[in-house]
């Protein structure tokens, strides 16, 4: 395996505001908005982009090979382009490798989701194995509820732990200028919100929003021209758990741990708690705690302590995925948020420390079957 010397940098990033139901914008407008923001303030333009990797969903878009509808706005005309049908962080994984291999200097990664124009229920239910699992009515809400129940049972926790993590996320999101939150719910609001999939309540589940995000990756040669202190992708890896929900390990995410372990090895990161910032994705409050544990930030079952810890990395200062889940771009937004923090450009939710390194996490699939972990840093 190669050494962890950084060779690929994130030289620009951009995102739309994250809002449920952007009636003012079509998919193409969301993508254009994120790209425009990304190229503000960097001496790069679409002409400098060698290739485009995009992430989106035919099912959410209601359109086959839906990338074909957006090639123009993505600047992919007469360029190398590919569609990864998974969260945008996997598209970064692809683009990272392409630049790492020396086959290109500058790559644009685009992720977008407009769940307000689709049925998020159908999006997940149609992922389920069609013969034995789908007829049971399994969807992402049921899957998240079953997992949360197993989690609480296995580690002898109660619902209060879930309300607590959701409340922190919503408060962070309310401070984030890029997430539209009318009023952050309190712990009591969350604990009293409507039951959806026991033990999960409405405000413990991720809220679908419309949005897009982009990052621009560049080779070391280009990155050093643009910045004296580029932000490198130090290592990334991904891992898929098995599909059958009943066969998965209850109360933990071994696939997330597997992805983290390889990503840390590639990044020469020994102690994950030594990074300054962590941005994770999750479909539920329980899922978020399980991710924090799988990333090695706490012992199993003790993820809630990571949220409350006085020391250690800042966790989801963006608010994470519970208040804002632009499906297919959610993990990519974690990366753009981490990049903004590292550049000290986050605005009103800028953390009060120098962000020199960060762990970024994305998930996909029913019951968070798929995980991707990236380590970035100066």
């Amino acid at each position, binding site marked *: 395996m190669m050494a962890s010397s950084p060779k690929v940098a994130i030289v620009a990033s951009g995102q739309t505001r994250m809002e449920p139901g952007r009636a003012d914008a079509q998919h193409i407008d969301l993508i254009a908005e994120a790209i425009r923001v990304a190229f503000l303030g960097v001496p790069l333009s679409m002409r400098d982009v060698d290739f485009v990797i995009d992430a989106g969903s035919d099912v959410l878009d209601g*359109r086959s090979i839906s990338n074909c509808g957006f090639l123009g706005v993505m600047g992919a005309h007469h360029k190398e382009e590919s569609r990864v049908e*998974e969260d945008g962080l996997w598209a970064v994984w*692809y683009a990272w490798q392409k630049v790492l291999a020396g086959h290109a200097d500058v790559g644009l990664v685009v992720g977008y989701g407009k769940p307000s124009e689709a049925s998020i229920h159908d999006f997940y239910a149609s992922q389920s194995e069609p013969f034995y699992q789908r007829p049971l009515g399994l969807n992402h809400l049921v899957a998240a509820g079953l997992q949360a129940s197993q989690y609480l049972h296995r580690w002898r926790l109660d619902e209060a732990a879930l309300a607590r993590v959701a409340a922190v996320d919503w408060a962070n999101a309310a401070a984030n200028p890029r997430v539209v939150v009318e009023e952050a719910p309190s712990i009591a609001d969350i604990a009293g919100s409507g039951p959806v999939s026991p033990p999960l309540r409405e405000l413990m589940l991720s809220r679908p929003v419309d949005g897009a995000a982009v990052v621009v990756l560049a080779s070391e040669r280009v990155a050093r021209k643009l910045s004296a202190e580029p932000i490198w992708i130090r290592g990334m890896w991904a891992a898929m758990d098995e599909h059958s929900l009943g066969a998965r390990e209850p109360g933990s995410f071994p696939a997330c741990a597997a992805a983290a372990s390889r990503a840390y090895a590639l990044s020469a990161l020994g102690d994950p708690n030594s990074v300054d910032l962590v941005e994770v994705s999750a479909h539920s409050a329980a899922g978020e705690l399980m991710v924090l544990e799988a990333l090695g930030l706490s012992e199993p079952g003790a993820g809630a302590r990571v949220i409350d810890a006085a020391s250690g990395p800042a966790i989801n200062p963006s608010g994470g995925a519970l208040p804002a889940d632009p499906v297919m771009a959610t993990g990519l937004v974690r990366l753009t948020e981490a990049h903004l923090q590292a550049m000290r450009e986050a605005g009103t939710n800028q953390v009060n420390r120098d962000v020199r390194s960060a762990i970024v996490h994305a998930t996909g699939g029913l019951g968070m079957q798929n995980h991707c972990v990236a380590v970035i840093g100066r």
Partner: protein
Amino acid sequence: MPYDVAIVGTGQTEHARRRTDVDQAGLAREAALRALADAELSMADVDSVVVASGPVLFAAVNQPEKWLTDALGARMKPVVRVTSGGGTGLAGAAFAFQQVASGIAEKVLVVAYDKLSEGALQYSISTLYDPFWGREFAVGIMGFSAAYWRARMDELGHTEEAAARVSVKNHANAFDNPYAHMKKAVTIEEVLASPPLAWPIKLLDVPPISDGACAIVLARGDLAPKVCSRPAWIRAISYYAEAENGAGRSLLQSEPLQLAARRTYRLAGITNPRRQFDVVELQEPYSYFELSYYEGLGLCAPGGAARLIESGATERDGDIPVNPSGGCMGANPIGAVGLIRLAEAALQVTGKAGAHQIEGAHRALVQSGGGWANLRGVAVVCA
């Protein structure tokens, strides 16, 4: 410097109009097991998996790679699906190529499949078009394809007879390919007299619709000789796009194909494709596309395709055989086709193609594409 990348194993399923004995996962597994067996490897040796398949509407399972993971034995590995229309098999290989070339993975399994008997193909394709500005006018893929051909008839001489020769050649070649399920001898007269579907496209210009899968194992260059005595080296691979509704889009030549060929040839040191390639495997969704690709790939000058097929040069005993496997006319599981072309090229340059082997084939050209004729990929494979 990137690592060299080799194909060390290939596998194809039994392709058929309808495979009722397996589901999608079983189909993908059949190809994966055959590729692993060919490479004498197991899933424990594989670092990463790339799945490629057509639009999910083709078979009504969203993000199907997640279901396939159990059947592929890929638990705890990266499993990523690339979808790029009809050429997605080659687009998937291009992603896997980067995983190996970058050094982040040593061995990668690519599985491409479509089970077209389980979905409504032309309905699915119709959803390609813009919901507000396209679907009112366009249905399926045949209408615009017919328009392309019609334009090329006058300007480039891509006559119905010339396209019929492609159909005759590829149908005949399929007889010697054990994986081709369409074994039907056709004559030029029969093709010309077959019922028009969207004129000038006629029934026998059109390949079958198939269930099928293909898998390959890629290995890092320094490890490949340890895995297999005769690796097939991917010298270069590219996949280009052309934006929708481009006012300047040419109906005559495929610009993304020309761009992909130019870049791939440059990386692979190809300056005279007609002379340097021993065999070509390309994806002909309709017969006439093959004529267009002769020109786009530089096997002849623009306007020279009809003469090239008439000369017999692209027959199996010609100097530049094209689709000795029978191409899509033998089997057409769309999402797998691009990878099948790549696998067939690997078989040819390693002398393992059996009854349709081109003697002494050393360097092969691969083409595949999709979308509304706007996504085009090219690869060069050498012994």
